[in-house]
């Protein structure tokens, strides 16, 4: 596979050392020298609170989370189940709104925007990947990849650009190694292939920020590896900022920044390589 061949040379010893490990990241992939302003915070949140209502009892999920993510960095959020990692990711991805606190993306406050604008930001500036892929079962691989464009454009403007958009999607699918699977439905694909389709879908609109919610959590070691390598390589190409929720410490160790959550609070921020 293409992604394997593209592995960088100096990762070899690392790979050999951890030959039995399920998931291996050869080196921190998202520290790109191409980044224009490496020091600026692309995404930040301040004192974010979120609780859910269960019956009459509010259950606090996040209680005062603050963090900063610089452009082109690879950040992992780790923590036990129920520590609020996914909720935090959803808030960052504008899928949900915090009870309190502020979230800023690209010098824009996004948490209290009208839903239309949040929809637009989600569509154009953020890519999302989930543990369970979340592909649309009625559409084939190519159509699934094109869905963000279909959402962005109306019928006519989509049909007018159809050719170029399809070419773009095909190119991306070729990069993720699915060019032979274009007309397959998700239920005809393996888990790894599905996740690679989801990556293609997340990246087809060339977002600035990629949010991944345990993208390897449902995959075996090899597929997980492939997915991570893909993320690294494509991230390098697009100078992508990645925030990944994981409970895999080994992945976390490869990232630029690790944010540990416990009971809805940030317990440590380790800027490993910065």
């Amino acid at each position, binding site marked *: 596979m293409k992604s394997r061949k593209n592995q960088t040379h100096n990762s070899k010893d690392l790979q050999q050392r951890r030959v039995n490990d399920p998931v291996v990241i050869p080196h921190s992939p998202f520290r790109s020298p191409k980044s224009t302003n490496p020091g600026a915070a692309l995404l930040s949140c301040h004192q974010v609170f979120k609780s859910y209502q269960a019956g009459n009892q509010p259950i606090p999920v996040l209680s005062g989370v603050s963090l900063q993510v610089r452009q082109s960095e690879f950040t992992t959020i780790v923590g036990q189940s129920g520590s609020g990692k996914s909720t935090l990711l959803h808030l960052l991805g504008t899928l949900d709104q915090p009870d309190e606190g502020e979230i800023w993306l690209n010098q824009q406050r996004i948490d209290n925007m009208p839903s239309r604008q949040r929809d637009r930001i989600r569509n154009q500036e953020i890519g999302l990947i989930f543990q369970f892929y979340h592909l649309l079962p009625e559409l084939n691989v190519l159509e699934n990849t094109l869905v963000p464009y279909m*959402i962005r454009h109306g019928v006519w403007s989509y049909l007018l650009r159809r050719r170029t958009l399809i070419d773009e999607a095909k190119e991306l699918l070729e990069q993720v190694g699915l060019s032979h699977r274009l007309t397959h439905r998700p239920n005809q694909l393996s888990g790894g292939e599905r996740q690679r389709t989801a990556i293609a879908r997340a990246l087809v609109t060339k977002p600035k920020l990629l949010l991944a919610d345990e993208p390897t959590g449902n995959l075996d070691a090899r597929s997980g590896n492939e997915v991570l390598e893909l993320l690294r390589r494509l991230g390098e190409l697009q100078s992508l900022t990645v925030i990944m929720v994981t409970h895999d410490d080994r992945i976390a160790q490869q990232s630029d920044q690790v944010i540990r959550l416990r009971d809805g609070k940030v317990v440590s921020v380790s800027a490993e390589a910065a």
Partner: protein
Amino acid sequence: MFKLLLSWRYLKTRFIALASIISVTLGVATLIVVNSVMSGFSHEMTNKLHGILSDVELVASGMGEIDRVEEKVEQIQSLLGDDLHGVTTVVRVPAMLNFLVHGQPRYHQIMLIGIDDQTFGNVTDFRPYLTNHFHRNGDVFRLMESGYDAELPEAGWSYRREKFRHEAYVREELERILQNQTNNLPVPIHQTPLPETTKVDKSENRDPIVNLAKLPPLPSQKPVLPTLSSDVPAGAGRELLSDDPQSFRSGAQDAWNPAPVDALAAHRAKVVLAPFDPITEQRVGIIIGIGIGRLRAHDPTTGKSQDMFFIRPGDDIELTLPSAGSQPRPLLENCTVVDFYSSKMHDYDGAFAFMPLSHLQRIRGMIDPATGGATVSAIQVKLKPNANLNAARDRLRAAFPMTHFPIMVQTWRDQQAPLLSAVEMEITILNILLFMIIAVAGFGILATFFMIVVEKTKDIGILKSLGAPSSGVMSIFLGYGLSLGIVGAGAGTMIGVLFVIYINEIASIISTLSGREVFDPSIYFFSTIPTLLNPWMVISVAGGAMLIAVLSSVLPALRAARLAPVDALRYE
């Protein structure tokens, strides 16, 4: 764009959508078929009523008479001017019609209508309903040699000649036998066959020595059609017609008919005085409704009906009718049935009989001997096709006010108002009921859609996470509902319209399969199932079905739109 694609994909892949489509299809098709047939029936019926009744009628109230007819007709003509198509005058009088069946008399209460055959056909649909096609454009009161409807039993001159020849023969043979019995002589059996010719040869027919066994078969010897006269012995039963007043008298006094009123007998004697040969002559022509002399038997196993005709063109009948004037007397009149009137309107076919207006006026004494002017009971007016019916009626009412003239002015709609409004109400109620079928289909769509929304919760979350706005998600389901409506209503319209076009073929196929008649033309006014496809009706039914489909998808679509993306995605 994604809305279109997903609506289409959902439609293609959901089996449950098919169920909704089928329910819409069936509802639409049923509504179209029932509506077309109902309006076809009512259209045919009103057409027929309209045709028979003419447009506006000036009726003498309470069985009275209208006098100074020419004056009034001229007044009507000048009043209506260009709107007028034609005017005719009629005399209507209730009468009794009687004839013999197997020697037993049958009586029918009829409405005798005297018509002017020159103008009557212009004003009402009359000639098309006659069964002899020569009568449709000729002298309607003449018995014809041929041209009678092939589906009816044999009728016309040939039938009449055979019948009266046979009757005369039977009478003479019986007389001969009685003669021989009184003389105690053996009855000789003659070898000479009855000649096969239909030409009237009195000398041969009167020959008393004829072979009974060689008698030619009667045209009316089909099993279902008993002849009027085959077992009427002379003298034993009443002669329906006779050249001889004696036979009338003897017939009038036998067991089934006790001695008649003297005046009636005297009148009968007077009426039949003229020598008359029924084999070569006809009496005054009368056209009777086909239902009068007909017995209709329904076979419960096949559902078909069979007809027996006790009377047919060529037969003679007797009429009893009241004379005109303040003290009506019973009048007797012998007539020859020359044709049937078959409008397929049961009420009319079973009651109407037509005879020449002038003859009826004469026998009823409606002609003023001093002036020669005759009275009538109604003036019928036919307007030009686009003339305003009610305006014409109102103008005539103003000209002939009820306070001054004993005349009622009515349009055909006024006359048939109860029937027309009943039919209209029936159609309205049926439409309401049938639209409920589509409403049921709508609730089916509602339930189906809620299920689809639940099933698609994850997809909705995915779409929202990719930036699809709530309105977009909503329009997926609205579009889905609309496409269900369009496909369902389209298919329903096609099936419905095809069903309506081929309804008679379908009816006959169902009859063959089930062995039961679905549409028995003898029962209804029509030979085929009448249909009327109103394009506006089809459009509104299809549009209504689509609207219901969209409306019933609004709630599920709203629910889908309100779904929080996080909740939708958490669902696994």
